[in-house]
């Protein structure tokens, strides 16, 4: 018999797991075993009673606090920093205006978003127009408004050179650069490649054309980037381009735009550890980027403005979704399943994250492992493959935390209509910032051709076939 020393620690096999967003988490993650009864001191139960379940809740306080954390991280390390709110991340006007009121410009990728920014009162010269699909009209409008046009491909570059002479000023342009930063997948679909010289070719064409004002360099290396050092690589490469522009064309660029991509504290699917423990902080990203720029060969007296298009990391924490339990089920193999009144229609990000889901009422410390499904009649409508939760019953409320980014833009009106979105302001007052959809609203865009209007129902006859009323044989 082997003699174990009782003092010794329990041994678990060492394991390493590749974090792969496509593979779900086999471990299941412990939910926070404290109920969430309040959001910014407003009762969750009351919110659901007044605004319905499900309902999205945004905290203005958290938005502003997060923004100021991010700003401080960069302002303390670099002389000139400008945030530009990434509209696609959450373009509810109330949300955009919180960030604008904190000094953010607007970063848009479509005419829809561009016009939204203008309507929100953002001056044209504080709008960054990204994206691969800008029509001639979009470009002309952006030129007229002095917006910064970030060129995505050579077709757009030539189009701008063609459009420029019709205006009395040089369009302000930057190029989007894609590059190898060690991050996979490389987003080389967008912009001009650094390594193969395409970016330099685009820069030379713009400057030599003398029809466009070359203002800056832009990159967006990906989203939810867990490595701050990838940003250091990206910033160094853009800085090298800036130095080369100075050498060859004797021109200082006005800005370097590092795009978005900072991770929020959500937990990626398949990750063994909680996102809160693994995501770099704003300080980590800021340190990587600003050190790379400051240590570059850019003339220290002419440091470019540093622009950041941070989306996800600024708003994820501020958003919650309150929902409720529809039913408990047992699957054929004995596993438990819980059906919620919200699914992937509202939580697009559940494809990527193991969302933190917490009951909103007191519970015992017993818990069980269950699969959380949404209410859609679709197999893909799964919110968590495996989650440990206290036993919940029909009608119990839960709070899904950190859902502020991308859900209120990528949600879909499928089977269900979209619910209300409310904002809790700094004084704790609740405002509806988007009403729930109604059938009338959804159908307001539809047209029904005359011959399909009010076709009498299946049994009420009145159908005409070949000009004759259809006889329905009631004996069949």
């Amino acid at each position, binding site marked *: 018999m082997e003699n174990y020393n009782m003092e010794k620690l329990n041994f678990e096999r*060492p394991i390493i797991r590749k*974090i792969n967003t496509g593979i779900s988490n086999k471990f299941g993650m412990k939910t926070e075993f404290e109920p969430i009864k309040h959001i910014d001191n407003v009762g969750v139960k009351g919110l659901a009673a007044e605004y319905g379940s499900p309902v999205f809740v945004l905290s203005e306080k958290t938005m502003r606090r997060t923004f100021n954390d991010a700003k401080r991280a960069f302002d303390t390390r670099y002389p000139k920093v400008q945030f530009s709110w990434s509209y696609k991340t959450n373009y509810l006007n109330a949300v955009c205006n919180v960030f604008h009121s904190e000094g953010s410009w607007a970063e848009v990728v479509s005419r829809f978003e561009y016009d939204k920014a203008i309507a929100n009162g953002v001056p044209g010269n504080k709008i960054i127009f990204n994206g691969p699909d800008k029509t001639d009209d979009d470009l002309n409008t952006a030129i007229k408004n002095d917006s910064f046009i970030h060129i995505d491909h050579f077709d757009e570059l030539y189009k701008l050179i063609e459009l420029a002479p019709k205006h009395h000023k040089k369009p302000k342009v930057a190029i989007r650069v894609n590059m190898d930063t060690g991050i996979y997948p490389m987003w080389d679909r967008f912009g001009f490649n650094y390594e193969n010289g395409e970016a330099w070719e685009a820069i030379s064409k713009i400057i030599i054309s003398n029809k466009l004002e070359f203002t800056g360099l832009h990159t967006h290396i990906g989203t939810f980037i867990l490595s701050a*050092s*990838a940003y250091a690589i990206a910033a160094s490469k853009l800085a090298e381009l800036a130095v080369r522009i100075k050498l060859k064309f004797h021109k200082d660029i006005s800005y370097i735009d590092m795009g978005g991509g900072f991770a929020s504290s959500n937990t990626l699917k398949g990750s063994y*550890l909680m996102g809160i423990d693994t995501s770099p902080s704003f300080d980590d990203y800021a340190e990587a980027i600003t050190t790379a720029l400051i240590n570059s060969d850019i003339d220290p007296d002419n440091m470019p403005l540093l622009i950041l298009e941070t989306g996800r990391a600024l708003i994820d924490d501020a958003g919650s979704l309150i929902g409720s339990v529809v039913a408990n089920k047992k699957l054929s193999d004995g596993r438990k399943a819980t059906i919620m009144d919200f699914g992937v229609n509202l939580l697009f990000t559940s494809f990527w994250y193991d969302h933190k889901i917490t009951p909103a009422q007191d519970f015992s410390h017993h818990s069980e492992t269950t699969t959380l499904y949404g209410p859609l009649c679709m197999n893909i409508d799964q919110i968590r493959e495996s989650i440990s939760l206290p036993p919940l019953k029909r009608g119990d409320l839960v709070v899904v935390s950190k859902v502020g980014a991308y859900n209120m833009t990528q949600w879909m009106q499928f089977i269900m209509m979209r619910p209300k979105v409310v904002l809790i302001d700094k004084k704790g007052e609740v405002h509806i910032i988007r009403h729930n959809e109604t059938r009338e609203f959804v159908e307001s865009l539809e047209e029904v051709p005359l011959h399909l209007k009010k076709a009498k129902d299946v049994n009420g006859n009145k159908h005409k076939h070949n000009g004759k009323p259809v006889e329905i044989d009631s004996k069949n």
Partner: protein
Amino acid sequence: MKINKKIAISESGFVFNPTTGDSYSLNPIAAEILDMLKKDLSEDEITDALLEKYDVTASVLHRSIDEFIDTLKEMKILENE
């Protein structure tokens, strides 16, 4: 056998390989072993240290460490010199 110099290991048991862009998570004992590898401890030294600390037989431990090291090599986190 040497740990790939470019690999970043966070204290929270998170590994990032900048060459491939891959991220990995470790359980606590895996993080402990990787830390010892980083400090250039040999496989025998690691085995001895763990035998001392954990309630495990030598054969189970050997098998676990061998398997783990093979996995690290597959993932290019460890390299043969």
